[in-house]
């Protein structure tokens, strides 16, 4: 199915992703030392989401999976977001 060079390419790709993840870790630590007010938490969450996406897409091979798993993942995340979001209708306006 795959030839040897493709396999080496796969390993190289994983290592590049790892490098990116380390860089992003550095960036998120760096940004957290700046005072951006409310933006700090959103930047931290944004970068974390980016890192998680890299892990999920490449390390966990989501890119190679069929649509079912990708859609299910979105459903799961949307469910969690809904749970948090609707709870805030209470806590923000109490």
């Amino acid at each position, binding site marked *: 199915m795959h030839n040897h060079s493709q396999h080496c390419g796969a390993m190289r790709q994983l290592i590049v992703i790892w490098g990116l993840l380390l860089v992003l870790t550095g960036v998120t630590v760096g940004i957290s030392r700046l005072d951006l007010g409310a933006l700090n938490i959103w930047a931290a969450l944004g970068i974390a989401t980016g890192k998680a996406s890299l892990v999920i897409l490449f390390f966990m091979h989501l890119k190679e999976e069929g649509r079912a798993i990708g859609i299910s993942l979105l*459903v799961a995340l949307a*469910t969690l977001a809904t749970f948090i979001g*609707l*709870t805030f*209708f*209470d806590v*923000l*306006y*109490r």
Partner: protein
Amino acid sequence: MGKVIQMGEYFRRGFLEPSGKQPALFDWIFSTDHKRIGLLYLYSICTFFAVGATIGLLIRLELIAPGRTIVGPQIYNALFTLHGVIMIFLFIIPGVPAAFGNFLLPLQIGARDVAFPRLNLLSWWLYIFGAIMALSALFGGGGAPDTGWTFYLPFAGETTTNVSLAVFGVFVLGFSSILTGLNFITTIHRMRAPGMTWSRLPLFIWSLYATAWVQVLATPILAITLVLILSERVLGLGLFDAARGGDPLMYQHLFWIYSHPAVYIMVLPPMGVVSEIIPVFARRPIFGYWFVAASSIAIAAAGSLVWGHHMFVSGMSDTAVLVFSLLTFIVAIPSAVKVFNWVATLYGGSIRLDAPMLFALTFVLLFSIGGLTGLILGSAATNVHVHDTHFVVGHFHYTMFGGGGFAFFAALHYWFPKFFGRMYNNRRATWAWGTMVIGFNLLYFSMMVVGMHGMPRRYYDYLPQFTHLNQIATIGSWILALGMALMAVNLLIALRRGQHVGANPWEAATLEWTVASPPPPENFEELPQVSHGPYDLKRAGEA
């Protein structure tokens, strides 16, 4: 398929035939056959149901007169807690999906088993361990839990009764439920027979599919909620203690984020059962297949958005009350879609009123009453009036028992001949049904009325003006119990002496009726090639 039926003599006992290699009990409790696991669930669920019903009868007996009748307040608290825990976590959540779902899912989609047979067996074992733990909380050191099945913090963190053990038991039960859910989703995605497209899936399978998603995505929230209770009790983290800066309402949010979707775990599969039975006994294909299928998904989705309606008087923000009240009304739409489609299916049909159909039609009536009273509770203004009264208890039992319970009995009568290859006495079944319907309505309608008059729930005592209605309710509970006993006896007799039936006694069109009754161990000699829909009753008759 014809071949399998002709070999009926050989397969007379089908999967029920003992292997002869080990003690018969081991044949069952270590079996990875989905049919045997389904029956294991069925037997254990019915046993726990009997225990839960007995406790329910005791509760009603205590309430037959004001003041202390048979038990004091502490034991009364334990009784309604145990009744709730048993009925919710041991009966109605696993009821239809784990017992009937396990048995029928592979048969209805044309597969030999579920995707993960060993995981399936593990689910049952976890269920039994969880059940034993939850029930042994009754007898352990601190006394039976007295928190109600909702385990509200901070009280559940402070009471000296055996809450920890019960909570851990429920945690294990939740794990079992998640594993069943992921098993079913994978099975439905991966193991449909050739030609079994999504538009040919029986509606029971659609309802199981929607339920399985709720099980996978909502049950983990219950797990973490229970972990939080345990951490309060064991480590005293104080996360929900207002004195230490915590917010007790956050517990209620977490609890209902699971427990509201959970009522759809309890009621979606019953709706699927009814969607199977009504077309067969009205001799008409289901009206609006896609609407019924999609409404299952819609109920599962919308049902995850409405948990706040359990908290209208808790001190939650008014904005949230408004939002959750609105969303609650939205969830009524897909439920109503189902009811209207069932009624439209009946229209112009040649209806046979055998026992399964009687139970299924009763489901439609009782669930509609339960659903409409749910709207009274869902609109914030009226909710304030009847919150925490017996009206809520009555409404809940109309949906869960009138809905879930009666559909469970409908399923039992519909698939009994398939499970055991024998038929019960339909006359006795009808008598049992009639007795139950009378008892049920006496019991729970009186509860709703007495709730409207202001009788609070969860009190062992009440004001004298509520006596009359409470007596009617208690008498209703005896009639209901009598009906259920008659039903149980009828089915137990049939198990031994019922007449043998062929593969398809109801002339239904779904795949489970194409194999012998009881089905052979591997279900299908050859995997079926599906060429028609699940309610194509004419073509099923020809084949």
